[in-house]
């Protein structure tokens, strides 16, 4: 059963009681929130995901709620919690939905150490995946949204999940988090995609989430082999420049973007070095996404 097959009144009822579970492939989350806007956005963006039924186990039980304090009424704030514990300070009420998404990422990064987790987008074509590790501001999510709606399968916008035994990448398909100008750009490029309302003035600027393509959600358990590691960097003055990236530099770039390499110790090192060795590596600077897509489709990384 998919989320969209639950009627809206039933969804709201179950969500308020913490009985909405969603299968994200590498993890199952159960959500509790009574906030109508969070319920509505979640219902829209996760419509294509399989439901985790009441009797099935989930990995993370998360909630977004108003704190039990005066702040509920005065300059209202919201809290994220995992199993009843709030790991972060509350945020303004208007940031409730991004807080949920960021909290879910935090759950994975903090506890899912049976995988190597890299802060990177990952997309796939013909069962060969390309990883785009990058710090905030590199244009990673915009590039990811563009490719995900241009024939590439989205595996993740934010977190690349690597199997320690096989070296394959597992999908962790989630709504794509767009910031600032990228929100209107994506709406212009792909007028039919579902985009959440904009949360203003977050720590990352204005933020909205894009519903992932249904085809990517259907393949949420389909792993892929990593073909290439590409470091993207948006540059206003350059349509597309491609630079060679040696494997030691690629290792260090990936290592800087891992969530848990240190925790994994020697397994993290072995997994990361195998990943770098098997993949082609490059760095790109760009401002023209169509040229990037053309390079990926027709260039040396053609899957």
């Amino acid at each position, binding site marked *: 059963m998919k989320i969209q097959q639950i009627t809206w009144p039933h969804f709201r009822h179950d969500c308020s009681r913490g009985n909405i579970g969603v299968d994200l492939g590498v993890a199952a989350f159960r959500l509790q929130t009574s906030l109508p806007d969070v319920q509505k956005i979640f219902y829209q963006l996760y419509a294509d995901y399989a439901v985790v039924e009441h009797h099935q186990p989930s990995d993370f039980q998360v909630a977004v709620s108003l704190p039990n304090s005066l702040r509920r009424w005065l300059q209202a704030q919201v809290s994220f919690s995992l199993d009843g514990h709030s790991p972060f300070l509350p945020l303004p009420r208007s940031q409730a939905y991004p807080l949920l998404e960021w909290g879910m990422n935090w759950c994975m990064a903090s506890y899912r150490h049976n995988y190597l987790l890299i802060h990177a987008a990952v997309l796939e074509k013909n069962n060969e995946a390309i990883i785009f590790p990058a710090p905030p501001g590199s244009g990673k999510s915009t590039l990811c949204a563009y490719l995900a709606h241009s024939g590439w399968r989205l595996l993740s916008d934010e977190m690349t999940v690597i199997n320690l035994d096989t070296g394959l990448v597992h999908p962790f398909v989630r709504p794509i988090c767009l910031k600032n100008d990228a929100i209107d750009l994506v709406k212009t490029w792909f007028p039919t995609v579902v985009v959440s309302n904009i949360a203003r003035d977050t720590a990352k600027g204005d933020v909205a989430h894009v519903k992932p393509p249904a085809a990517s959600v259907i393949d949420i358990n389909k792993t892929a082999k990593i073909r290439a590691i590409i470091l993207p960097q948006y540059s206003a003055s350059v349509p597309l420049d491609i630079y060679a990236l040696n*494997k*030691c530099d690629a*290792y260090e770039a990936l*290592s800087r973007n891992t969530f848990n390499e*240190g925790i994994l*110790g*020697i397994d993290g*090192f072995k997994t990361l070095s195998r990943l*770098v*060795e098997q993949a082609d590596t490059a760095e790109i600077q760009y401002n023209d996404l169509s040229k990037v897509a053309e390079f990926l489709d027709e260039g040396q990384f053609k899957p």
Partner: protein
Amino acid sequence: MITFQVSKRLQIYQPSDHSGVLVYVELSGKTVRLSHDLLPWLKSIDESASLSKKSVMRDLNTIDSARFDALWQTLISEHVLVEVDLD
């Protein structure tokens, strides 16, 4: 004279493009990037051997002294080599 041993259970990754050598040091939980030309020496070190700055310099005689001093500092500070406890 201060003597050293190579840190236990070093893991070495030698990238196929010869861009360097990456050494995982279990003692520190860190990865150290070294020059590709150190690979033969790294592979030849016996874990039980006692090493001194002089003996390592002799083994790496192709490296000039300024570069060796920098390398030596790296090997010590990154725990690739650890001081032998004489007690």
